[in-house]
């Protein structure tokens, strides 16, 4: 199993009552409430925690990027990746992911990824994302072309990593008279690309069609079977048999020696009313043109409904559904066994600390994960046959799979309409 540590790096030191008064905590929630002295403290605490995660045996440290909201302090994924490249020794740097469509220069990502891969001595996993709609609003990237820009930026990124320059690029959304960065990725042909998401059928299929692992982001456990069915059908349609090596799962997990204390700290996962991307409006989270047109009516109804506040399920309910796992190491291992048996991922991201969990408790959680939880999970993974892409040395992508190993089954193509899953993810990320 590939076991990774993650935290959203919350800017928890903000006046939550102001957010409650406003009714939202993203996009337009004023940064006058941002205290950079606290920001400095929090960043440096997280950096110490990452160092410990590296030392106690995590295979990876997952980082991400969001904007204009307290739920995540990382405004630039490549900045934190660069820091990890310098301060860690063993763990892979798992970018989930580079938000390609929200910037006007895919070449910038190609250069930064190459630098980070070299500095980290080949420890980079350069995941990619479309970015939620609110990131498009915050960075003013046209949301109606988000998917087109994602596809084109991906093609250019991969070509830049694999082909010698100079070449020119004349795309619909990006143009370069010269692509010839003097920074090349160390890992050949290129670092692995993973694709995270909550439950967007379009993105799940896209990942499967490229043979990139899909990392399911805290998707309710009972839905993961349906999710992998979509992935598996798309995989078979392009000619390969998917397995646990194609599957990742991110889950909120908190461990302490005292189970009650762990569960008390885990309540911090409910900070900002349990909406882990903050409270936003549907027309920010999914601006018109960003989502699938098949669910236009549902979206328009939701966007105009003016419902305020949280739609998150109560803590106890999420605990019972194993959307949050908390307890002593033994309790957590028992719960995670069920998760692994149900979801069967080979890549597990342990989202360890969030909200106002203090630095000391965060360090203890990471330590306990490293000394007790991770070894047990590796045993369970072996027992269940959950072998990750590195163990299997599985192909990096469909494009890098020898054609004679592919056996496309056309009848496997999924006829399921787009709308069901997209509307589900919209509800979660309201």
């Amino acid at each position, binding site marked *: 199993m590939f076991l990774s540590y993650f935290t959203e790096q919350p800017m928890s030191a903000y006046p939550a009552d102001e957010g409650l008064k406003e009714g939202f905590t993203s996009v337009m929630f004023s940064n006058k409430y941002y205290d950079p002295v606290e920001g400095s403290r929090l960043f440096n605490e997280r950096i110490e925690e990452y160092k410990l995660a590296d030392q106690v045996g995590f295979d990876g440290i997952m980082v991400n990027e969001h904007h204009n909201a307290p739920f995540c302090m990382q405004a630039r994924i490549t900045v934190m990746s660069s820091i990890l490249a310098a301060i860690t020794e063993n763990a892979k740097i798992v970018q989930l992911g580079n938000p390609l469509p929200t910037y006007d220069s895919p070449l910038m990502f190609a250069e930064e990824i190459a630098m980070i891969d070299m500095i980290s001595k080949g420890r980079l996993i350069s995941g990619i994302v479309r970015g939620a709609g609110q990131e498009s609003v915050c960075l003013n990237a046209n949301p109606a072309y988000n998917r087109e820009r994602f596809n084109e930026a991906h093609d250019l990124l991969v070509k830049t990593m694999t082909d010698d320059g100079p070449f020119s690029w004349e795309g619909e959304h990006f143009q370069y008279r010269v692509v010839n960065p003097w920074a090349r990725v160390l890992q050949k042909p290129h670092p692995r690309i993973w694709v995270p998401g909550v439950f967007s059928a379009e993105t799940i299929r896209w990942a499967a069609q490229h043979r990139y692992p899909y990392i399911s982001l805290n998707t309710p456990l009972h839905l993961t079977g349906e999710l992998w069915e979509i992935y598996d059908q798309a995989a078979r349609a392009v000619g390969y048999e998917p397995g646990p090596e194609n599957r990742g799962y991110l889950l909120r997990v908190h461990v302490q020696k005292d189970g009650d204390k762990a569960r008390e700290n885990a309540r911090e996962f409910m900070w900002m009313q349990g909406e882990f991307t903050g409270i936003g409006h549907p*027309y920010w989270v999914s*601006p018109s043109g960003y989502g699938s047109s098949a669910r236009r*009516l549902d979206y328009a109804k939701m966007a*105009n409904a003016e419902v305020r506040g949280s739609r998150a399920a109560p803590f106890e309910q999420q605990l019972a559904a194993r959307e949050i796992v908390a307890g002593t190491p033994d309790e957590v291992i028992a719960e995670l066994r069920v998760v692994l048996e149900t979801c069967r991922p080979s890549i597990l991201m342990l989202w360890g600390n969030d909200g106002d969990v203090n630095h000391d408790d965060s360090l203890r959680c990471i330590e306990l994960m490293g000394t007790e939880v991770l070894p047990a999970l590796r045993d369970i993974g072996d027992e269940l046959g959950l072998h990750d892409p590195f163990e299997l040395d599985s192909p990096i992508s469909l494009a890098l799979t020898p054609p004679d190993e592919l056996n496309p089954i056309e009848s496997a193509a999924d006829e399921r309409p787009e709308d069901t899953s997209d509307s589900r993810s919209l509800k979660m990320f309201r």
Partner: protein
Amino acid sequence: MAMQTVTTTVAGLGMREFTGGSGDPLVMLHHSFGNPGWMPIHEALAYHYTVHALDLPGYGGTDGSERPEWARHPRDLALLVGQWLRAKELGPVELVGCGFGGWVAAELATMSPELLKRLVLVGAAGLLPENGRIYDQFLVSHSNYVEAAFSSTEAFEAIYPRNGDESEEHPLGDDTLVVWDMNREMTTRVGWKPYMYNRRLRPLLGGVTIPALVVWGDNDAVVPMECAHAYVEALPDARLEIVPDCGHAVDLEAPESLAAIITGGEG
């Protein structure tokens, strides 16, 4: 008065209009939230003109004008309106543009003035205000934005009745919501940024020598009144008419006043 729905193919795209009345041709271009139908303003003007209420390309829902996938700027829409006028051999016409449609009309006037007899801009976007700000629809819900185009909730509901149960979360009809969203998507495709202005428009307005009429609601909360003055200053032969107690959507909120202004008081 009898009204017809006509679709004309231009550049491979079906472009829909509602048309009626008699007399010289008058073309109306709608707001970014679309034309809700054959409205009182069309009816009032149809006594004096043959009115063509055109759905801009990509607007009007699935029954409206087809979307040009390639269009990236309101100027692209202005080019298509020009091609549509030529295809129908309508010009020179009275061109009335409201809000976003006013911006498209102004762009068309700079590129093909020979197609126009007169330019009428009603709360037109297109110029960057120096002091105020054009109200950004992308930060608010569809219904909140459209309501902001009226001076009161009553005026808004007169055009968009809340035909559902008031206790429902979304009392507006499904069809309205879907068309609003399709229109907003098209506005996103051509007008995401810079939002509702073109720095290259103002310098070209000096070359538009046809008569121009600039009409503004004095309670316009969408496009600041300073933009009305900017248009009047930039256009060589323009005059300003202000409609009292009226919001941004003068065409929808005060159709009789607007018709009287356009027809020179004959309304």
